């Protein structure tokens, strides 16, 4: 779920950019290091980035509206580790902002934090925690929880920017959570199910 | 008589130029139709329109003289009857192994598992790929992948099979094997339409030819159309060598009973 261009007040936009920057810089260093050792990995990373972008253009079944966040960051984090996804996810989010008008430059920091940092870390952490569980179960929870975490973070970011006149942050938070629950919870479940089918297919070749 | 047809079909993508303009095409059951035209003339678009996967901007797709409504149930029936195989097999193969790929359509038709397995075995037998069934798709050669993609469509047992450049990239032996497959399918009652750049193949194979030139279509008996050097030149195509040879030998090219095989053409031209 992308926060639209200009939606966050200037201070919030700047703050989230500052929060995300170190993660992205670390990811960029990591990628630079990897590509120096293996030049061909540049092409593979680009392939994964292009894939992630293309997936946001594919309509998922039984969900109203298409998923607009870079799908596959959860699966990507399991395969490539979160720092790489922070940098790669940033590229994909910039492409979505520029080519699809999903998100924007001023909200890039906030969107990177929810989708390219928190999402991948939750996916990776869940997958590692469920290391002894059946593969399908671990993947399902990794992907679904990453989706849910992304959505909770976005609601938090909005609630911090727009606290309720009376009930403050928590009033606004429950409202933003409720507003997007309608689309995001079914989406998380469907993506989790598809993530399992996808990772099983990947393992088979 | 015609079983599958386009009537007054025009197609454009968004606000780009028209790809097809007021096209009429008739696919007659049991007659081989070859679709020819330069790159970008609209061949793939025409095949997509026939298959129901592309709704024309204007005009109608007719099945047994009934216009296709593009409603869900009508489309489902249409897709059972008409299958399209794309040029690049990699645009079409989406399963991990060959068996899964071929069984996809029959499973969606709602057949029970045993019937699906029987259908897959039968299709693989027909196309000579039985020994590939247990192999992963990405380990196959280009020619093998083309045959598996074809098998996925054939397993639907369509009345009409549309093939976009089926011989492109195949070696002569691969082409011969493909043509033999198509002959067996025709024997089982399937009508085949194919598009190709290989004019010599069109001469040998086709009964009827539809020529696309900048979005407009001309159809005729293969002999007549392939003999018309001016028409072909205008469409940026070459005449098949067979037509040139018969012409140079002073023989008529348009004859409905034209010699088709290479041996027959050579015999006709040299022993006049």
């Amino acid at each position, binding site marked *: 779920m992308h926060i*639209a261009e200009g939606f966050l007040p200037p201070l919030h936009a700047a703050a989230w950019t500052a929060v995300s920057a170190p993660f992205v810089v670390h990811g960029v260093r990591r990628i630079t290091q990897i590509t120096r050792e293996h030049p061909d990995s540049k092409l593979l990373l680009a392939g994964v980035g292009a894939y992630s972008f293309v997936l946001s253009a594919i309509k998922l*079944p039984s969900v109203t509206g298409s998923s607009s966040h870079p799908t596959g960051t959860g699966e990507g984090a399991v395969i490539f580790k979160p720092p790489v996804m922070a940098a790669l996810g940033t*590229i994909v989010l910039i492409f979505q902002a520029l080519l699809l008008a999903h998100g924007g430059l001023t909200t890039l920091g906030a969107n990177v934090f929810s989708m390219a940092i928190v999402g991948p870390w939750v996916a990776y952490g869940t997958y590692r925690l469920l290391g002894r569980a059946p593969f399908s179960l671990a993947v399902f929870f990794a992907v679904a929880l990453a989706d849910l975490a992304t959505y909770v973070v976005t609601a938090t970011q909005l609630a911090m920017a727009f606290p309720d006149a009376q009930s403050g942050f928590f009033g606004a938070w429950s409202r933003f959570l409720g507003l997007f629950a309608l689309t995001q919870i079914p989406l998380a479940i469907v993506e989790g199910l598809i993530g399992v089918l996808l990772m099983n297919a990947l393992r088979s070749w | 008589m015609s079983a599958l047809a386009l009537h007054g079909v025009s197609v454009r993508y968004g606000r780009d130029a028209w790809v097809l303009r007021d096209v009429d095409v008739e696919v007659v059951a049991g007659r081989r139709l070859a679709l020819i035209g330069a790159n970008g003339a609209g061949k793939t678009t025409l095949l997509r329109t026939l298959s129901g996967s592309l709704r024309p901007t204007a005009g109608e797709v007719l099945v047994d003289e009934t216009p296709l409504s593009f409603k869900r149930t009508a489309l*489902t029936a249409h897709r059972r009857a008409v299958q399209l195989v794309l040029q690049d097999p990699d645009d079409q193969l989406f399963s991990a192994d060959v068996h899964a790929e071929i069984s996809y359509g029959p499973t969606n038709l709602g057949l029970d598992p045993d019937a699906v397995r029987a259908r897959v075995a039968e299709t693989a037998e027909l196309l000579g790929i039985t020994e590939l069934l247990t192999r992963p798709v990405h380990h196959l050669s280009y020619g093998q992948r083309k045959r598996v993609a074809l098998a996925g469509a054939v397993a639907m047992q369509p009345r009409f099979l549309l093939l976009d450049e089926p011989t492109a990239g195949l070696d002569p032996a691969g082409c011969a094997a493909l043509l033999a497959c198509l002959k067996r399918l025709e024997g089982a009652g399937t009508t085949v339409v194919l598009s190709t750049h290989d004019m010599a193949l069109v001469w040998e194979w086709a009964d009827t030819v539809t020529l696309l030139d900048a979005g407009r279509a001309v159809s005729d008996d293969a002999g007549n159309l392939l003999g018309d050097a001016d028409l072909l030149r205008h469409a940026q195509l070459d005449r098949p060598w067979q037509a040139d040879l018969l012409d140079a030998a002073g023989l008529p090219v348009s004859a409905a009973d034209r010699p088709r095989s290479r041996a027959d053409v050579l015999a006709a031209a040299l022993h006049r």
Partner: protein
Amino acid sequence: MTVGARTGSGPAIDRAAWSNRWRDRSVLEKAVLSLGLLVVAMATRPLWLHAALVAVCLAAILVGARVEPRLAARVLTLPVTFIVLGALAAAVSIGHPASDAVWSFGPFWSAPASIERSVETVGRSLAAASALMMLTLTTPMTDLLTAARRAKVPATMVEIAGLVYRMLFVLLDVAGNVRATQEARLGYASARIARASVASLLSATLRTAWVRAQRLGEGLEGRGFDGALVVTPRAQNVSVPFVGLSACVVLALGVVAVMTR
């Protein structure tokens, strides 16, 4: 027929970027205007000034760059759903209405400050989105990437982004073709079948991404690829009058924005 891309495919913004009248203007010229107005939009408070900013951007997009109006309209309305829903959620409180409530209906009500804040947010968001779109609707991605390289963005990231941009069209095409094939074989008839179909579509697309990337690597190796993808872009002249005029417009609106805060 064409083996790959169908002409005219891809995102609408991309099509506009390659076909408008400002296409060959240098990135610097358009960036000064677009990003300048984006900063002004963020600093602006009154709605009328946001409206004025949107008007300036629309004039640049429609009159200056001659982007086709229907295309521009479609693109400009893309973020509207989020903006409207989000602003509504920020404006409406739930619970017992306060004494200064502007309106109330059952448990729903709004404080004047919340409404004011939402109006400002909608204005800021629309103005900022239009400013950014002025750049994206008129500038091919390859020009932006060249500019990013000049601006000292790490070369590795610029090169990966360039490869992503090239490959995404190849993948869009394959994904579209696989989807059409699955539909033709009745793969979206029920929710359960559809879910399995989407999963195999996704894995086929990922496999394509992987295979394509490997083959591209092999292709590049034959051309001396050793890690770097340095190219020479076309020469672009910077129009000083255009930059000057843009700077004046941005500065003037910026001054008004600061004075009206």
